[in-house]
């Protein structure tokens, strides 16, 4: 029902979310634990963290180490609102859609279709390759360090086995086509790296000289591949063949992760003075739609009253029936007692 609400209601909802974001004293990013020199070693959480850093958003990190198979992690808490990873396309899409922070809105000259196609490539081909490397190609010690080191070992082993099976199903890998699938995955990953390398060229960011969400997504992927995967990793070897991608990764890693812990001191401000300004909030136009929810609420109240009355009626009937049965049952039991007495005399 929320999805079918008219657009002005969504606009008012976006304004409400943005207001909550501004009012929140401190945002909290709930992610998985840090490892391998990264603030979070989870390949799903790292892009979100980098995106918040690129937006110069101050936030705290809370580590969740007991729910490795949760699809709602990472999520961002602001006030009483939460942006979950399994809602509205993910945390980054949620923040963009709710007009909270949107890196792409500072690029009127960048082609939207270019950004979208590049993002789709990163989120499919590269994501699949990374999943394959993490769960199927390695010996399991890396997933254990990232996800299961704080769980008791039987639970960790069961969840690891379960996740491995899920990834196989997701990538369509069976015993028969394992070799072909592996070759296909690496082929696509290499093609993606080649395309991204061509797109990047000598620039600091993938599109012009300002970051977009694609930069956060790809940077997360690249940092994971270069820092977490072992030297024997095929994917890592593929990535290291493209010098500009490696330099891109190292450069931004220094800026975003090795600077002062307070991310407001990042060097992004010097490269783009306009990034410090927050997006202008749209005026709320939901006033004219208020009568409809009120009518709904009134009906709900009537329904509640009716249900309460029905509940009382049914309960009263049940009690009456039980009372009748109890009285009749009492008479029957006394007769049975008499019969027992007769048997005893015999």
């Amino acid at each position, binding site marked *: 029902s929320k999805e079918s609400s008219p657009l002005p209601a969504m606009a008012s909802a976006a304004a409400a979310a943005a207001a909550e974001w501004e009012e929140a004293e401190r945002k909290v990013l709930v992610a998985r634990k840090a490892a391998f020199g990264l603030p979070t070693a989870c390949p799903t959480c790292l892009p979100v963290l980098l995106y918040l850093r690129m937006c110069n958003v101050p936030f705290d990190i809370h580590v969740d180490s007991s729910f490795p198979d949760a699809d709602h992690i990472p999520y961002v808490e602001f006030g009483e609102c939460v942006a979950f990873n399994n809602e509205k396309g993910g945390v980054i899409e949620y923040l963009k859609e709710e007009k909270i922070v949107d890196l792409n809105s500072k690029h009127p000259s960048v082609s939207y279709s270019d950004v979208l196609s590049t993002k789709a490539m990163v989120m499919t081909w590269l994501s699949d390759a990374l999943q394959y490397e993490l769960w199927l190609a390695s010996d399991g010690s890396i997933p254990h360090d990232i996800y299961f080191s704080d769980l008791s070992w039987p639970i960790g082993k069961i969840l690891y086995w379960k996740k491995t099976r899920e990834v196989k199903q997701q990538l369509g890998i069976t015993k028969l086509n394992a070799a072909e699938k592996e070759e296909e995955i690496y082929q696509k990953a290499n093609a993606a790296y080649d395309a991204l390398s061509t797109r990047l060229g000598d620039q600091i960011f993938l599109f012009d000289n300002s970051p977009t969400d694609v930069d956060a997504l790809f940077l997360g992927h690249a940092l994971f591949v270069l820092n977490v995967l072992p030297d024997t990793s095929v994917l890592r070897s593929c990535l290291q063949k493209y010098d500009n991608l490696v330099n891109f990764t190292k450069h931004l890693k220094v800026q975003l992760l090795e600077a002062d812990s307070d991310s407001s001191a990042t060097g992004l401000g010097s490269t783009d003075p306009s990034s410090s300004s927050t997006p202008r909030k749209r005026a709320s136009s939901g006033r004219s739609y208020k009568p409809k*929810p009120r009518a709904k*609420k009134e009906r709900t109240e009537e329904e509640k009253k009716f249900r309460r009355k029905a509940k009382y009626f049914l309960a009263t009937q049940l009690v009456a029936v039980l009372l009748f049965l109890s009285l009749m049952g*009492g008479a029957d039991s006394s007769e049975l007692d008499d019969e027992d007495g007769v048997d005893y005399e015999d």
Partner: protein
Amino acid sequence: MATAADQNPNDAEHREAAAGANAAAEEYEEEDEEEEEVELDGPAAVAAEREKVQAVFKRLSSDPVGIRVHDVIIKGNAKTKEELIEAEVAELLRAAPTVQDLLRNASIASARLRQLDVFDSVNITLDAGPPELPGTTNVVVEVVEAANPITGSAGVYSKPEARSWSLEGSVKLKNLFGYGDIWDASGAYSWDQTSEVGIGVSLPRFKSISTPLMARASLSSQDWLKFSSYKERLLGLSFGLISTMQHDLSYNLTWRTLTDPSQVSSKSIRRQLGHNLLSALKYTYKIDQRNSHLRPTKGYAFLSTSQVGGLWDSKGLRFFRQEFDVRGAVPLGFYNSALNVGLGVGAILPLGRGFMNLSSSVPDRFYLGGHSSPVCSLSGLSSLLGFRTRGIGPTEPRRLVPSESEDGSAASPGRDYLGGDLAVSAFADLSFDLPLKIFRDAGIHGHAFLTAGNLAKLSEGEYKKFSLSEFGRTFRSSAGVGIILPTKLFRVEVNYCYILKQAEHDSGRTGIQFSFSSPL
């Protein structure tokens, strides 16, 4: 608690059945001897034989006659291991020095074998010993094994608040391997909250261990979405280590997963979602000297439950949990009235480095509220008449979804009840007969009650803010009157509750409330 309550009626039934069987056996023996007397020839011989028999009986009944058991012969056990039966009865029979003692021990042995619940009938007869050894006897134990080793049962039970009914069924396989083992598979489905599937085995006696051993594997899920915005799934093994009348020691190894399919949980609940391994030892000490489970009018009851978690490794849940429950019933002498009072106290303490700043696990905390009768159940910490289940205590706002909050008239997202690390609850209940005789005959009676309780959070450093005076000042309480209808299916209570005191976010409601509980 339900398990303990279940066992008591069964034990009583077993004892009654054993007593009845013994009486029947005695009658049977007398009839046999009379027939023998009738068959004798000649009036003079008849008179002489009768005198002899009477003399023997007089001697047996008045004077102790020494006897020695030469052998214990077991017949009829096609499947059951002979050593099982021998372990149960042989030593008991051999220890009898006189005929009177032997007869008494034989009846005890018969009761023991029936208690195994795997035999249809047990007969113990005394036979003459070998001729070269006068004064000896052979005891013949003849058992008839259960023809059908499968028994099943099903029932419909109701839980508090009259919204939760559960359908339960179980199937038992008896004596599958000849050790008196009982295997059972059971399932329970509740419309609202809980569903469970379990498989268990119990051994009444294994080699030289005299206490029964039990093991059970179960898979259950509990739905607390309405109260605390989480759903709990448990996959567990439990082992009964010691189980006597008053002591119960068990070990549990449970994989517990908390999820929130609705994604509206509050911050504290969100931090607790995930997987945990619960490795806990639980000890329960219980005395129930009240004269009735349904309507106690005299006696007292005491329950102490201690639980230590974190025995597997340091990554599982580590806590210590203690619960006390004291009850008393005093008859008042008019209208068959009685005053029942009870007090329950519980506390949970997380263990580990910096334990006072750690968080206790949400499912292990204490919750108050619900309409089940505080008089009958011996775990009064979970009941507070007039309040909804989990309806009091610390709360936290749920997740705010902005599309709803923009409209000024929309409802707030609600709150999660988090439970407490310290819980205290008390009640006083005055039960009395109603004037009409037809009500008294049916067992319908009235009661007036007063209940109170409070929860406090102590973990995560909150103990610093805890003050006893404030805890006492914020006690929730309710009072009321009601009618109780004990039926064969369940116990019905119709109560009018008046909320005397409640806090801002409590779910107490003044008015008529119904409660249905199992007659355990």
